[in-house]
């Protein structure tokens, strides 16, 4: 009797301890590999994307599916070969469960075959090359951002029908993003009855637009400008310098007035009408909360880059939660990514089409000054815009990609 009791107590204690220990031992963390340019000319845009992501991860305490999240960040220098090296490091050395990021389309194209061959899910929050969710789509890549021509299809129609524009001169950066944006706009604008009088293409290294601005005739209804970053800033300044601002209406692709450059522009940007799937001034509860928090934390207005991986983050985490955190099962994760429909996204409702591209709102915005600050006031909305506009995918894909 006297020996049994202590032994029994001991067994109970050990048993309980093991039982409790098994319950509270922490499962290994979910590793997310993230890659954007953090040096060189695109560093600020890359940082915006990262900031949006980190802000969301902070909101959920870096936990999902009952596990801790480890975010491993790498700089891809906006060079595709470096992007591939860093992807190899993240996937083969750091053994991440899922990848996200990339900014430039060239990196997006370069990574796709590797991601597919490694059978690891990847979220592209910003890469907007049309073909990545069309002919050259990968089963393992989900785009939560947009395709370059997507908002411009809507905008071409809007320009003709609502703005009453009949003739346009386009001026755009001379690379795929420029061709696809102008191509999308042209398709619907011309289908409505409009006319593209001239297409001006500027090299990426341009900083003086004078040779191009001098070619714009005064009698055209509008100039459609597709620029981004410092070229948008320089263009706005010079468009006014050459007296075009008060003579010819200025419209353009969304990146031309996106918040990554808008705060640095002056009155020369007022009245410009553009189209994009986001605006920091979008008047919805979800966006107001997002923009306020972002402003407080990072001391600047969120750009579409910032919003891109906030939404991308929500999407990724929703998928992880949908499979109860079992990210080792990559097939379920990619299936979940294609399936989930998170709500409360700053830009509004988003679903994915079968090609892995978002179907989302396109906002027509006008640059106004409100409370002393420039903003992209939303003046119209096109709901449920897909990358194929109103065409059936099979018909759409019969046409070649938009080119120069």
């Amino acid at each position, binding site marked *: 009797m006297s020996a049994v009791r202590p032994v029994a107590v001991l067994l109970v204690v050990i048993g309980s301890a093991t039982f409790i220990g098994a319950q509270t031992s922490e499962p290994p963390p979910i590793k997310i590999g993230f890659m954007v340019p953090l040096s060189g000319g695109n*560093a600020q845009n890359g940082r915006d994307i990262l900031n949006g992501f980190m802000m969301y991860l902070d909101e959920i305490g870096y936990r999902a599916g009952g596990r801790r999240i480890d975010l491993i960040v790498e700089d891809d220098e906006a060079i595709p070969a470096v992007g591939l090296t860093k992807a190899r490091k993240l996937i083969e050395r750091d053994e991440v469960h899922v990848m996200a990021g990339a900014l430039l389309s060239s990196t997006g194209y370069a990574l796709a075959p590797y991601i597919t061959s490694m059978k690891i899910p990847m979220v592209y929050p910003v890469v907007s090359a049309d073909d990545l969710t069309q002919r050259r789509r990968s089963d393992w890549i989900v785009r939560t951002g947009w395709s370059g021509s997507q908002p411009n299809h809507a905008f071409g129609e809007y320009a003709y029908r609502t703005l009453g524009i009949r003739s346009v001169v386009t001026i755009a950066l001379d690379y795929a993003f420029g061709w696809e944006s102008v191509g999308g706009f042209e398709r619907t604008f011309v289908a409505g009855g409009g006319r593209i009088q001239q297409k001006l293409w*500027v090299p990426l290294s341009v900083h*003086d637009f004078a*040779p*191009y601005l001098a070619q714009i005739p005064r009698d055209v209804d509008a100039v459609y400008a597709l620029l981004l970053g410092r070229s948008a*800033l*320089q263009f706005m300044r010079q468009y006014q310098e*050459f007296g075009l601002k008060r003579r010819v209406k200025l419209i353009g692709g969304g990146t031309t007035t996106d918040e990554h450059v808008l705060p*640095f522009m002056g009155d020369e940007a007022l009245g410009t009408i553009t189209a994009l799937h986001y605006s920091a001034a979008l008047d919805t509860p979800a966006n107001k909360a997002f923009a306020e928090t972002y402003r407080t934390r990072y001391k600047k207005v969120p750009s579409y880059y910032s919003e891109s991986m906030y939404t991308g983050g929500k999407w990724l985490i929703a998928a992880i939660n949908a499979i109860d955190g079992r990210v080792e099962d990559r097939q379920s994760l990619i299936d979940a990514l294609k399936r989930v429909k998170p709500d409360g996204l700053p830009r509004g409702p988003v679903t994915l089409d079968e090609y892995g591209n978002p179907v989302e709102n396109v906002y027509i915005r006008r640059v106004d000054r409100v409370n002393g600050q420039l903003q992209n006031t939303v003046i119209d909305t096109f709901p449920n815009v897909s990358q194929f506009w109103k065409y059936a995918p099979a018909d759409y894909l019969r046409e070649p990609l938009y080119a120069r």
Partner: protein
Amino acid sequence: MTYFIVQSLNGLFSAALLFLIASGLTLAFGVMRIVNIAHGSFYMLGVYVAYSVAARTSSLLAGALLAVLIVGAVGFLMQRLFLRRFASQPLPQMMMTMGFALFFRDAALMIWGGDPFTLATPRWLAGSMETGAIVFPWYRLFVIAVAALVGVGLWLINERTLIGARVRATVDDPEIAAATGINVTRLSGGVFAVGAALAAFGGVMGGPILGGYAGMDFDLLPLAFVVVIVGGMGSLKGALIGAIVVGMIDNFGKALVPELSYFTLFAPMVLMLALKPTGFYGRA
């Protein structure tokens, strides 16, 4: 006709900025045989410093002054403390300037962040000249005038002052110049500093129109080299002529043959190097 006039005026504007940047580069080569890969960095630092100053004082002039002084000092120190150690070895000197270029680039990103910006155009220069169908901004005309003044000033110093004579002597033959008692080391530091200051000034002048942005250092550098090659290394007159030639070709080329826009700059350079490597006014 309108078009031709506007493009010509803009060609002169481009030439003005190119002259300011290239003059420093050509002098550095002429006096010290330095190929300064960090020269674009001076241009960049100039406009960034002016941006910080203008943010506090709203004065472009103050910005220009401080940019010139600070960047000039940076150039002076760079030459005195680092480049001078390899005075007769062009390759290590060039490599060191490469290292500095990377350093400046990331330092600027660290200090000012990566957002692009433009400087505010001075109010009295806002707006454009409009005669008939020709519209051309006043500020660009101002830049042409200022660069012309700087050019005349440099020419006067070079041709009419003792310092200028010493610089010319050193460009001609550094060894003999030193033998006649010219302090080549101190002269070199000074020339390098002036070159840096000129580039910074160019950056500030371009600020209201071209602004500043991450990566502008490497964007500008090839342009500067094209001017110096076409004009002739070591020659201020060459920098002027080269700037005008390049400015005109670039503007008209972009307008008339936009498909070749990536080549309009480098074609004249390759041609010159193939036919007369020393450029219009350079000496071997």
